[in-house]
């Protein structure tokens, strides 16, 4: 982004303008009276947000926001809300004023502290000058990965990421508990949620057969490329899940479930988290701290490997292998959880439709 605009100050103005657009979508959301509108506004909000994040030099976040916020979230929202196209009645004013006043007070309170906050874009602010800068300086020496965001995410703060993967796993467990009771086997799965009008269309199925491997390949590219550019396990996981969902949309959930039963998906989610944790245990067994990737390889073995491409340290192979391993775990957990959630939602919606029809 920075390369597009001549002056750094203009860049800030551009960014502020995009943020205005985002806020405008929130205003629209406040006023929206139909669920479908809300969902679409939410999707647009996420997309615009992703654009804004690009202007803020946060391509990794933008990638995630686009794939998670605008992609997956919208999809499951639509999946859950398909049958409720009702208009949202407004709340009685008596119920409204207290939360409204509270929110207004919160806004005013927060606005009052603005003078005490770092100036927008200030390179000398405490966040940018202290730990943030340390990461930029230390990464070549400690990790060796060019993408500092990945280095921080996967290595320095790898424990956070383990927690984050656990959150996703927990969501999968929760959704399967709540909705999964009826999607045990492919036979019990609902008839289909494929695009009914086009079901069986040869064009679509051929295109899908071509596209799905490419999407999978792209997922692995995103996974492996995370070290060098935007991307990583989460994004890869979401993309992989998208491939599966595409399969379900074109060939029917039933077919997908036959190819990849719920039990397998659930197991993969658990295995992903378990794999992540196993990397940590392995480090402990090799004499390091939990999740210390440097301890993954024994020095003898590491000495035989070529040195890393950027900053010539001999100990970066451990970090690279560790990061790749945990990112794979993340991808596995994310992809399977997303698939499980998709199974649960689609299975459930058509089930209740069927109940309504009969």
């Amino acid at each position, binding site marked *: 982004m920075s390369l597009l605009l001549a002056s750094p100050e203009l860049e800030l103005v551009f960014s502020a303008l995009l943020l205005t657009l985002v806020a405008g979508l929130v205003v629209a959301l406040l006023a929206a009276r139909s669920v479908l509108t809300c969902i679409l506004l939410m999707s647009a909000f996420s997309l615009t947000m992703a654009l804004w994040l690009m202007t803020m030099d946060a391509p990794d976040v933008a990638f995630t926001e686009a794939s998670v916020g605008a992609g997956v979230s919208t999809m499951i929202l639509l999946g859950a809300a398909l049958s409720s196209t009702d208009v949202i009645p407004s709340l009685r004013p008596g119920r409204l004023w207290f939360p409204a006043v509270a929110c207004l007070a919160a806004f005013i309170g927060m606005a009052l502290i603005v003078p005490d906050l770092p100036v927008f874009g200030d390179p000398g602010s*405490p966040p940018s*000058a202290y*730990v943030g800068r340390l990461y930029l300086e230390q990464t070549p020496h400690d990790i060796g990965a060019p993408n500092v965001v990945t280095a921080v995410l996967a290595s320095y703060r790898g424990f*956070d990421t383990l*927690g984050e993967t656990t959150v996703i*796993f927990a969501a999968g467990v929760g959704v399967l508990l709540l909705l999964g009771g009826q999607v045990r086997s492919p036979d019990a799965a609902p008839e289909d949620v494929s695009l009914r009008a086009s079901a069986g269309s040869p064009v679509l199925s051929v295109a899908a057969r071509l596209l799905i491997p490419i999407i999978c390949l792209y997922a692995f590219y995103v996974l492996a490329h995370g070290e060098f550019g935007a991307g990583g396990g989460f994004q890869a996981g979401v993309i992989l899940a998208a491939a599966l969902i595409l399969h379900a949309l074109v060939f029917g959930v039933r077919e997908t479930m036959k190819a990849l039963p719920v039990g397998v998906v659930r197991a993969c*989610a658990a295995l992903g988290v378990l794999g992540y*944790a196993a990397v940590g245990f392995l480090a402990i067994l090799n004499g390091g701290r939990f999740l210390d990737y440097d301890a993954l390889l024994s020095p003898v073995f590491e000495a035989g490997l070529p040195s890393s491409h950027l900053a010539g340290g001999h100990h970066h192979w451990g970090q690279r292998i560790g990061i790749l391993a945990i990112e794979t775990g993340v991808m596995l957990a994310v992809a399977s959880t997303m698939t499980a959630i998709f199974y649960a939602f689609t299975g459930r919606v058509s089930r209740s439709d069927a109940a309504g029809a009969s």
Partner: protein
Amino acid sequence: MSPFAGAQFASPEVIQHAPALLIAAPLTAACVAALSPSARWAWFASLGGALVSLWMALCLAAEVARSGAVSYAVGGFAPPLGIELRLDDLSVFFCLLVSVMGVATSIASASLLRLELPERDHSLMQAGFMLAFTGLLGLTATGDAFNAFVFLEVSSIGTYALVAMGASQDRRALTAAFQYLVMGTIGATLFVIGVGLLYAVTGTLNMADMAERLAASSSDTAAIAGLALITVGLALKAAMFPLHAWLPGAYSAGPTMVVAFLAGTATKVSVYLLIRFLMDVAGGLESAGEGLLTWLIAPMAGIAAIVASVQAVFQTETRRILAYSSIAQIGYVLLGVTSGSVAGLTAALFLLFTHAMIKTVIFLSLGAIDHRGSRLETLAGAGREAPWTIAALALAILGLAGAPFTAGFLAKWRLLGALADDGRIWAVVAIAASSLTALVYCGRILETVLFRTRRPAGATISEASPAALAAIWFLAASSVWYGVDASALYDLARQAAASVMGASP
């Protein structure tokens, strides 16, 4: 003297990694439980995870007693770059609390689940339970503010769904869980915004580092706002009055094992974080932490103690009575926390632990005799059909009422003494008034289970399973033991309080 001084529960190699294993063990157990082919294996996994955590917590308690505080740099990166797990006396106290309640719940869980949910859900329930357990342990162990947010979510996300699973018995579980989810998420988000403000001022996320930099910073409006947001967020999570509305619904409709575990731990851990942030991280900003404690939390806690107790009296469902009593108890605890003296904080911590034991016993035994969201009357005469379970229940209720020779009495005693010592007569009056009210609802429960005979038709009550009885009686007996000789627990609490107040124990 800590009761763990000189104890050694494992080899030094294991102790060295105890902080990480404390969290990683139940996480692994959660995955294994989700992979388990049968409910039985999932139960073993969860029991194993909980036991390993308890073992690690004991190791850490001994280690902290020996060396003061344990710091563990995850990934081998020293803070502030890496995430630090930091255990001092205060965190170890809460680690022990969470892991003891986790083990007790886990022991009883298999038989409780059998009463409430179809077998196919058991392994995922165990997995969700272990995830919540992981999250709470992580919260107590972490020394990193943002990592705390992550664990806050780890402990919550699964819990929302677990609470909603109560819908097989009581459909209100669904709406309660949704309200819990909205309120919990708002709380966690306020917390993370608050952490962001502190980060904006200090540039670091490590709590110890943050405390140092806050003490050195010149302007602190943003820091105070951040602390205020953290306080409100955690108050929501801790069900502090008037942000408690989500709790009665969630406690009355959720599955027993979930409610028993949450009632004993979740709100308590939020109180821990509150103490950590307001008294430790904000330690340098004298005006901020203390001001929030004195002018925001203390009055609310006083009102909570009275109002929630009165509300408890007017409830007709057993679990709702107990839920409101929990809200009042949080009020007591916070009154102790805000007293500003080591004695007050010690008393608050002691009360917190004993109350966790008592509430876990109560919810476990109510669940074990198959009494869930129903009205108190359906318990009439239960004492005859399930004497062992009801005896433990009665002991716990006596403890809740503050009867002598129970830990509940000593806890209240310490609290009143400390508050009187600090000259907070209004707080003493509030607690005394609330205790009086507590006598009414505790008496109502006791009278119903022990002395009533006629019962509406249809409700059957049977004795708890041996495993559940073992867990229930272990906690009930401990609560009586701590009512006679509390020195071990009391010393732990005092060490914890002294460590956070910076006084020598």
